[in-house]
């Protein structure tokens, strides 16, 4: 019972405290309408919003948005520059490839020319060697012919001498030397 009385006392205290908190001359039972329209509050809102807008435009939005725009421009500029550089690089790559192709073609041409030159030179050397060999062979043949002719002449002469000597020996002393020589010359001519 005493406990119940205590609880009642506490709850009354709480209600009174709440009432006092709400109160300040207001009727605690008066209806509070959150939908109540107040023109004064609307005007306060306008005034404070536009003051805030103006002040923030000055201290914040203008410098911040300006900085962001500037940064965007710089980034865009960098992107554009990178694009230009990329295009330049691509052009340089193309020029490099073209030059490499040209150099390759030139080197092939030089090699081809050198090969052809070497082949022609080899051919010329071979022909020259062949000509020289032919000349040498011809000379050798001529020498052989001359030597053979000389040998034949020598042999013929020797044979004539031997024949004359032989014939002299056979005929003995019938013929003199002038007759023998004439006969021998005749024989040689006949030979």
């Amino acid at each position, binding site marked *: 019972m005493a406990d*119940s009385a205590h609880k*009642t006392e506490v*709850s009354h205290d*709480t*209600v009174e405290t*709440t*009432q006092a*908190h*709400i109160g*300040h001359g207001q009727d*605690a*039972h008066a209806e*509070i*309408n*959150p*939908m*109540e*329209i*107040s*023109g*004064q*509050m*609307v*005007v*306060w*809102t*306008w005034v*404070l*919003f536009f*003051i*805030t*807008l103006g*002040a*923030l*435009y000055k*201290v*914040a*939005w*203008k*410098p*911040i*948005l300006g*900085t*962001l*725009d500037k940064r965007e421009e710089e980034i865009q500029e960098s992107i554009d520059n990178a694009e230009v550089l990329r295009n330049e690089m691509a052009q340089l790559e193309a020029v490099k490839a073209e030059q490499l192709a040209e150099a390759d073609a030139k080197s092939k041409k030089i090699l081809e020319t050198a090969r052809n030159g070497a082949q022609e030179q080899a051919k010329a050397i071979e022909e020259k060697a062949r000509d020289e060999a032919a000349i040498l062979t011809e000379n050798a043949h001529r020498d052989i012919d001359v030597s053979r002719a000389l040998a034949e002449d020598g042999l013929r002469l020797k044979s004539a001498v031997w024949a004359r000597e032989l014939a002299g020996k056979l005929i003995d002393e019938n013929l003199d030397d002038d007759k023998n020589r004439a006969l021998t010359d005749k024989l040689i001519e006949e030979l």
Partner: protein
Amino acid sequence: MTNSVHIVEEMQHQVHETADRAHYVNQWVMHHVTDSGEWHTPLWSLHLPPWISNNAVMLIITSFFLIIGFGSFFRYQKGKAPRGWTNALEVFVLFVRNEISIAYLGEKDGRKMAPLFLTFFFFILTANLMGLCPLFSTSTGNINVTMGLASITFFFMVFGAMYVNGPIKFFKAFAPEGVPWPILVILMPIEMIGLVIKCAALTIRLFANMLAGHIVVFSLVGLLVTFGLWALPALAMALAINLLEVFIAFLQAYVFTVLSAMFIGEMYHPAH
């Protein structure tokens, strides 16, 4: 017999007492979530002059916080990447400008109108968050404040669009091409009323969301007053709802700003 009569009386008494406490809790909750001529805190209790109310004081503090905050937190150093608060706030500034203002108004008008939407977003966000801090109250839980903000959107929807497109084009926007005139007679007034309804929806949405959240938090705390320690778990729920309110504060600031940009964008570029 006497004993049972006593028990019944005791129960009746307790029921009346709980009802009384519930009534006062209701008064207490409504007192805390509505505007008044006083500013109560655990530290002080101010009686404000008749020309200013508690929510007006909160709006002044909101403006003060924003101007001081942005004036001191935003520091750009030439040639250096932004850091700390500057970097954190810049994310929001960029988001509002690119994803809200430019997205709904186009490149040219979007950039020009970005300061308005940035102010809308940060003004509402700060006012919403202040309501979650001790000592302060939620000015955006006041229908007159949200009405004031929505009327600024309305002003730009009407006069801004007239300035951008000219008065004739402004009225032509209510009459789509190819629509027969008997239908236009009905359609044009509906479209014009639609302007007001859109702004009324902006007003109610922000006001109701902020008010409802605070009523829920205070009601849960009020359960402690009504039922004593039995309602202690309600305190944890109030804390959870309060954390949810932080998210709601951001969400509602975003929603108000996006819808304002959308409505103004529709009037600036009616062909789209």
